[in-house]
C-alpha cells in the first residue's frame, strides 16, 4: 500500500513537474519559432543558444510584472478562474498510459476501468475556468468570450464522445491500457491493417477508424480553443476574449492551461489512435527470420529498464509531433466565423460521427473473430 502511494506520488510529481510543465514552456517556444519560420521571420533567438532559454526569461517576466486587478471585477472569482483553467488540463493526464513499465511499476498514474470517460469528464470541467473568467471580469469582451467558449466546448464534446465509440466497439473496454494492449497485438487504431495485412476485414475497418481519427482530432482542436477555432479569444473581434482583463501570472496561468490542454489532448490522441508508447522495430535473426521487435519494460534486467525509458520517450516524441501539427495548423489556416463553427460541429461532425458508428458496428459485427 505504502509502495503504491509512494510510486503514485513520484509519478504525479515526475509527470507534472518534469514533463508537462517543461513541455508547456518549450511548446510556447516552439510556437514562436515555428510561426516565425512560417512567416519568414527569425523569432526569439537571443536568450541562450538559438533562443533556447527564452522560456526562462518569459517565466521571469510573468512573475516580476505587476499583478494588476481591475477595480470593477468580482475579486474572488477573478482569482479562482485561472486556477480552474489550469487544473483540469493537468488532471487529465492521470489515466494516460505514458509508458509500459519501469522497474515493474506500470507507467500510468491511475489505471481505472472508465479511462476515457474520465478524460471527457475532466475535460468538460475545463469550461468553468473560461466561463468564470469571462463573467468575473465584469466587462463586455471577456463576457462574450466566455459565453462563446462554453457553447463551443459543449458542442464539440458531442463529436468528441461519438468519435471514439468505434474504438470501444472494437476493443470492448474503456480502460486505456487495454486499448494500448489491443493496438500492440492488432495494429494501431489509425491503421488496423498493420497487424494482419492479408486480412481484408482489417482494411475495411481502416475506413471508420480514419474518420474517427479526423473527427476526434478536429474536435480536440475546438476543445482546446486552438486556431482555426479560437473564437473565445479572437483578438480581432474580442480584444483578448476571456482573458482581456488579466495580466502577469494570472494571464500566464490561462496561457499555460491552454498549452497543457494541448499536450493532454495530444496524449489522448496518441493513446487512442497512434499506439501510445508502442514502436515496432524491424528486426532479423536466424531463428525467426524477419519480424517486428517489441520493446517494453517487461524485458529482463537492465534491458527492461532501458526499454521502459525508451517507451516513455517514444510516447512523448509522438506527443511532440502532434504538438507541431497543432502549431503548423494554427499558422496556416484562418479563423472560422462563429456560425460556421457551430454549423461544422452540429451539422457535419455530429452526423459524420453517428454514421461512422453504424459503419464500424456493421464491420465489427460481421468481422470473423
Amino acid at each position, binding site marked *: 500500500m505504502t509502495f503504491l502511494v509512494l510510486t503514485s506520488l513520484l509519478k504525479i510529481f515526475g509527470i507534472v513537474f518534469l514533463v508537462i510543465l517543461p513541455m508547456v514552456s518549450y511548446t510556447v517556444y516552439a510556437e514562436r519559432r515555428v510561426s516565425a519560420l512560417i512567416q519568414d521571420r527569425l523569432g526569439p533567438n537571443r536568450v541562450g543558444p538559438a533562443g533556447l532559454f527564452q522560456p526562462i526569461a518569459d517565466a521571469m517576466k510573468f512573475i516580476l510584472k505587476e499583478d494588476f486587478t481591475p477595480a470593477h471585477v468580482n475579486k474572488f472569482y477573478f482569482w479562482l478562474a485561472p486556477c480552474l483553467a489550469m487544473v483540469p488540463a493537468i488532471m487529465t493526464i492521470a489515466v494516460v498510459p505514458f509508458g509500459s513499465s519501469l522497474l515493474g511499476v506500470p507507467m500510468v498514474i491511475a489505471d481505472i476501468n*472508465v479511462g476515457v470517460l474520465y478524460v471527457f469528464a475532466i475535460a468538460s470541467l475545463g469550461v468553468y475556468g473560461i466561463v468564470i473568467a469571462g463573467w468575473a471580469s465584469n466587462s463586455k469582451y471577456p463576457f462574450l468570450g466566455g459565453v462563446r467558449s*462554453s457553447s463551443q466546448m459543449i458542442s464539440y464534446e458531442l463529436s468528441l464522445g461519438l468519435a471514439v465509440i468505434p474504438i470501444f466497439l472494437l476493443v470492448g473496454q474503456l480502460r486505456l491500457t487495454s486499448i494500448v494492449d489491443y493496438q500492440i497485438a492488432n495494429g494501431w487504431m489509425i491503421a488496423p491493417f498493420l497487424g494482419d495485412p492479408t486480412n481484408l476485414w482489417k482494411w475495411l475497418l481502416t475506413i471508420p477508424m480514419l474518420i474517427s481519427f479526423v473527427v476526434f482530432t478536429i474536435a480536440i482542436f475546438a476543445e482546446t480553443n486552438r486556431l482555426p477555432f479560437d473564437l473565445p479569444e479572437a483578438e480581432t473581434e474580442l480584444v483578448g476574449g476571456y482573458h482581456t482583463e488579466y495580466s502577469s501570472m494570472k494571464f500566464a496561468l490561462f496561457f499555460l492551461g491552454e498549452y497543457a490542454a494541448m499536450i493532454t489532448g495530444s496524449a489522448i490522441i496518441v493513446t487512442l489512435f497512434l499506439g501510445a508508447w508502442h514502436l515496432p522495430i524491424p528486426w532479423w535473426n536466424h531463428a525467426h527470420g524477419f519480424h517486428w521487435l517489441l520493446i517494453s519494460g517487461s524485458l529482463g534486467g537492465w534491458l527492461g529498464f532501458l526499454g521502459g525509458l525508451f517507451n516513455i520517450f517514444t510516447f512523448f516524441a509522438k506527443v511532440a509531433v502532434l504538438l507541431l501539427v497543432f502549431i503548423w495548423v494554427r499558422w496556416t489556416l484562418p479563423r472560422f466565423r462563429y456560425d460556421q463553427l457551430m454549423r461544422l460541429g452540429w451539422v457535419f461532425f455530429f452526423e459524420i460521427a453517428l454514421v461512422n458508428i453504424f459503419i464500424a458496428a456493421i464491420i465489427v459485427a460481421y468481422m470473423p473473430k
Partner: protein
Amino acid sequence: MSPFFFWFFSAMMLVFGAAVIINRNPIASALSLVVSFVGLAALFMTLDAFFIGIIQVLVYAGAVMVLFLFIIMLLDLRAEERRKINLVAFGGGLAVALVFFGQLYLVIGQLRQAKQPFPPLALPRVDDVRSVGLLLFGNYNLPFQIIAVLILVATIGVIVLSKRELR
C-alpha cells in the same frame, strides 16, 4: 485511508451543499453545487463504483451545471442579491427540516441492521461498466429504447417550439 476520504468528501458535500442555499449570489450557488457533485462522485469512487462517479461528473458537473451557469449569467443578479430574507418562510423551512431529520433518526434507530456494523464486501471485483452495459442493453433493452425515443421527441419538440417564430 478509506475512512479519511469518506469523511473528507462527505464533509465537502455537506458544506458546499449548505453553501448552495446560503449564498445570495446565484453564480456562487451554482458553483457550490458543482463542488458538491464532485464530492459525491469522489464518494462513489471510494466505493469502487468508477462508472457512476465519472458519469456524475460528466453529466451533472460538466454538462447540466454549465448550462445552468450559462443561463444564470444572462440574468440580472443584483435583484436576487438585494432580496431580504423572509423570516416566516425561514422558520417554517427550519421546522420542516428538523421534523424530517427527527423522523429519519427515529426510523433508522429502530432498524436492526443499523445497530450492527456492515459486513465487508466479499464479492470479487466486477467491471461496473460491463455490468451496467449488459443490464441496460440486455434485460432492459426495450425500456431503454423507449426512453431514447422519448428524449428524441423532447429534442424535436424544443427545436420546433424555438423555430416557430422564425417561420
